[in-house]
């Protein structure tokens, strides 16, 4: 049995309020049966310096990624990982992390590929928990292993591969990278290392909405009206649109995927995790440089 949904008036505005929990709710429910709290960070050592009591660590690079295929783990590995963390198919999983839940949203998206039903984000993430002076622990939580079923990953609904993005051209695309990456001025995040993309720019027609704009200063998600002003009024999305979001490797766009899917209620939102490190290097696909989204290419390149 999963845990009851938090009845929080400030979440009622969102399309799927059941996908969020507040720090207060989590503090009250820590230790509940069928609740597993997972910390997913950019900084792999951060968890060990202190985490929410009872929370376990999950790392995208060492645990959710396959070492050799540039892909996510398969069903068997995911089942083994879940079992080792004491998660069953019915467990309520609450994810949180550093940097406005950026990497926590990424983990949540991967959980969704495996159809894990009840997975929620801690609104505000690690920073909010700490800012509120809540308890941290360096203890190693005891885990009772479970027997998570092997579920095949379903890439067909919320994930887009490069050929599908080419087919999608003409429908809305959201580029969530920084403005400098979008224009092609640089191929990687400001203040981050060169990521090795051959060309700088964006996918033709993509609208630029840097992922962090969805987060308020305290790391929580902005109110729905503000999100609608950004994604609908400004970026031009319309209710019912099928949307593809991308970034550099698919992590920042998972955050935007969460916003579009669970907070604004777009039915069909896919994350293109190949993102710029694939598109920017791929042979025979078009790009656009500069601030404008650009026109649909008449010829979509050799690959289309």
């Amino acid at each position: 049995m999963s845990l009851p949904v938090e009845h929080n008036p400030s979440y009622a505005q969102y399309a799927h309020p059941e996908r969020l929990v507040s720090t207060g709710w989590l503090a009250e429910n820590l230790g509940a049966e069928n609740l597993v709290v997972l910390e997913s960070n950019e900084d792999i050592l951060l968890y060990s310096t202190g985490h929410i009591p009872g929370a376990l660590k999950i790392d995208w690079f060492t645990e959710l990624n396959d070492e050799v295929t540039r892909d996510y783990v398969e069903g068997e590995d995911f089942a083994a990982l879940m079992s080792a963390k004491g998660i069953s198919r019915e467990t309520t999983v609450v994810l949180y992390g550093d940097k406005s839940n950026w990497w926590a949203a990424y983990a949540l998206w991967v959980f969704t590929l495996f159809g894990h039903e009840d997975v929620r984000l801690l609104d505000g993430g690690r920073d909010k928990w700490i800012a509120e002076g809540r308890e941290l622990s360096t203890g190693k939580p005891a885990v009772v292993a479970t027997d998570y079923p092997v579920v095949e990953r379903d890439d067909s609904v919320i994930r887009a591969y490069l050929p599908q993005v080419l087919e999608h051209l003409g429908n809305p695309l959201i580029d969530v990278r920084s403005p400098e990456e979008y224009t092609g001025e640089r191929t990687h995040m400001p203040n981050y290392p060169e990521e090795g993309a051959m060309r700088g720019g964006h996918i033709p027609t993509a609208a630029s909405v840097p992922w962090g704009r969805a987060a308020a200063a305290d790391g929580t998600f902005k109110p729905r009206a503000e999100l609608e002003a950004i994604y609908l009024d400004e970026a031009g999305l319309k209710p019912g649109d099928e949307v593809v979001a991308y970034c550099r490797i698919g992590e920042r766009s998972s955050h935007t995927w969460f916003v579009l899917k669970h907070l604004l209620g777009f039915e069909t939102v896919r994350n293109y995790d190949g993102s710029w490190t694939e598109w920017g290097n791929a042979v025979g696909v078009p790009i656009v440089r500069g601030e404008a989204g650009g026109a649909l290419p008449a010829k979509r390149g050799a690959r289309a």
Partner: protein
Amino acid sequence: MSALTPALAEIVEEFTEVPEADRLELLLDFSRELPELPTRLAEHPELFEQVVECQSPLFLIVEVDADRVVNLFFSAPPEAPTTRGFASVLAAGLDGCPAAEILAVPEDMPALLGLSRALSPLRMRGMTAMLARIKRQVSEQLAA
């Protein structure tokens, strides 16, 4: 000729002789041991060079004295333990060494720590950039 400083060679050995799973713990130990800045520098953020390639803010100062001995100072926030850990490895392995020894450290030294399966390429690159900037500053100061 490229070679590790004796202290750095020891650290590399320390990392590679423990099982892969324990190497992150070791890096965490290093992050806790990053020396505090001396007061004369702590109050002068403008003297530091930012290593923008790191995933979290890291600032460093390289000083080469008259005897061509190099002193290194790092500043990184506690909420960036990986970055602190890398800085601490370099501080322990390079601080107080002759400039020539530091310039001889191979650019891909971070790869020798055996962390590439635990840390994404992006995470590793921050340390490579730190080393490159230290070496560049040493060369510049020797030439000045």
